[in-house]
């Protein structure tokens, strides 16, 4: 650098590209992101989250668990007990696994109880801890009714309460992530709850498809297909919102995970939809003359059942990878100061205009 251009006098040591972009009031609106912003030796400005991978698993398991509760309730109301029992077991087991994953992240069980010391709406983690606890209790009552036929009225109330709490359990984790200084998570705050809701619906349906005999799994298949479609749309909306800030979600390991998640969700959704339609065809035939219908369709039915289950597994894997992609992309965006500084500089420039 030479000469006395006062606008370019100072130069941060840590500047990688060697330019010192200064936002000027009244300048042109930039369509392309500017060069690397200045930083302190490339050090991050915010601290990277210290959450262990158990937390990523929890986002997936908790989401799936929550969305299984309305499935258990509606199946029970319709008398589809094969499906209702399996969904009820999923809610109880899922709540238990969720709690175990959180305890693992915290280090010891007593630390989870500290979460229930207070209730704070400004802390999504506090709200979530209470929701998970209440969900576990009510889902257990519902499952007791469904599996053992005890507590008919209390059990039904438990089922209804769990069905109402479940969707909150599935989505509050989006609020939790968005309420941080992590650039990717905070910027995605409007779309993230929908990504989590859709992915939870898809995963709950998909797991029920895997566990339930095909003749009783129609609801589960519809949930899996609708959820997978909604998940793809919600992720697209999130990508559009993030713009260039979505870079960490498209490159490196998170990028690979996100692409795999999209592919698995799409392929899985199609497989469940197509396999499920054949299955419905079989059910109709079986109804009007099951002996001949079954004889003709037996091979086809076996194949379609396999397609549905394989598709369901793909949807589950896609949902898990999507959560981990978002989790790790956030961490990557915390590590590089440009994702923190550049949007803030743009905000300052916009205010000065």
């Amino acid at each position, binding site marked *: 650098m030479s000469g006395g251009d006062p606008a370019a006098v100072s130069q941060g040591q840590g500047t990688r590209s060697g330019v010192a972009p200064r936002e000027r009031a009244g300048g042109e609106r930039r369509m392309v992101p500017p060069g690397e912003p200045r930083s302190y030796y490339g050090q991050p400005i915010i601290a990277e989250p210290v959450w262990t991978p158990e937390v990523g698993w929890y986002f997936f398991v908790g989401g799936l668990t929550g969305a299984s509760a309305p499935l258990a309730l509606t199946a029970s109301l319709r008398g589809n007990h094969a499906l209702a029992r399996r969904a009820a077991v999923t809610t109880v087991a899922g709540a238990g696994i969720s709690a175990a994953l959180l305890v693992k992240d915290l280090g010891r069980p007593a630390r989870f109880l500290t979460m229930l010391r207070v209730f704070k709406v400004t802390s999504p983690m506090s709200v979530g801890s209470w929701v998970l606890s209440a969900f576990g209790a009510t889902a257990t009552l519902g499952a007791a009714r469904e599996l053992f036929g005890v507590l008919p009225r209390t059990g039904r109330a438990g089922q209804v309460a769990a*069905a109402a709490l479940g969707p909150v359990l599935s989505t509050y984790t989006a609020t939790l992530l968005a309420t941080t200084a992590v650039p990717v998570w905070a910027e995605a705050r409007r779309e993230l709850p929908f990504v989590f809701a859709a992915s939870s619906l898809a995963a709950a349906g998909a797991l029920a498809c895997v566990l339930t005999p095909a003749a009783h799994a*129609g609801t589960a298949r519809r949930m899996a297909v609708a959820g997978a479609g909604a998940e793809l749309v919600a992720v697209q909306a999130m990508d559009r919102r993030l713009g260039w800030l979505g870079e960490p979600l498209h490159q490196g390991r998170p990028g690979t995970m996100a692409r795999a998640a999209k592919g698995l969700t799409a392929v899985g959704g199609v497989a469940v939809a197509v396999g499920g339609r054949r299955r419905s065809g079989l059910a109709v035939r079986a109804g009007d003359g099951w002996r001949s219908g079954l004889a003709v369709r037996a091979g086809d039915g076996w194949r379609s059942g396999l397609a549905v289950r394989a598709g369901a597994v793909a949807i589950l894997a896609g949902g898990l990878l999507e959560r981990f992609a978002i989790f790790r992309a956030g961490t990557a965006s915390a590590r590089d100061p440009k994702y923190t500084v550049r949007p803030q500089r743009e905000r300052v420039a916009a205010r000065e205009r």
Partner: protein
Amino acid sequence: MTAELEVLTYGGTEHKRVGFFTDTSVCIGCKACEVACKEWNGVPEDGLNHTGMSMDNTGGLGADSWRHVAFVEQRRALGIEDGLQGSLVQHAARAQLADEVGEELGEMRWLMSSDVCKHCTSAACLEVCPTGSLFRTEFGTVVVQEDICNGCGYCIPACPFGVLDRREEDGRVWKCTLCYDRLRDDQEPACAQACPTDSIQFGDLDELRAVADKRLEVLQAAGEPGAHLYLNDADGNGVGGAGAFFLLLDEPEVYGLPPDPVDAAGDLPQTWRATFIAAGALLAGSVGLGLGGRE
């Protein structure tokens, strides 16, 4: 308590809001603040490393570094507006000399700044803490209660300054307490007492703000165009001002500070609304799919 904070839970025992004014223009990088803080608060050693970042071998704030002195080395062109350095004639002479020697026109500038927890007016760490471990003291400062912290780690990415961190050995979060124990005995915090140049000044926040305004005027009159106050008042930043504010000589990001920090919890109403709409859609969708169509 004054200075924008409204904490009404201390029932008359509250104190005027206190804080730090860190005037980086007189920081000499001695790190006495880092040492005094560690000594007084019994903060463990966190590695004796050579980072290669000028004289900064601390690296940044963390669970075991509650004060951090940043060292920024800059090659600074000698502009005519550079009033601190001498007359136009001297500049011309130096420019000529530089021409003859064939060197770039410019000289080394060393910026030093002692960073610390900002004790924000709108503190995201405090708001998102699920256990109530982080609290607002009667002095208007933000402190972690170690007997309550369960190490959930939520405050760590919530802080827009990257101040909080988990200590490896015990899994809990530790940060500057603004020497809560000393404040209760009418003592100033250890770092401020140790600072030999008064770069770190401790006091009632409204008084510190007046001092800072005067100091800024002096520096601007002396021809320091980059001088500005950072987080000194409630407006113009997303954290409602800070208990620890700074006089900086260059843009905040040069010191590793965010140029426009915001309180992450400020968007909570909007985010909760989106979440409840999404949860409602999930409930309606799953019930609709469950009750309509074939089994």
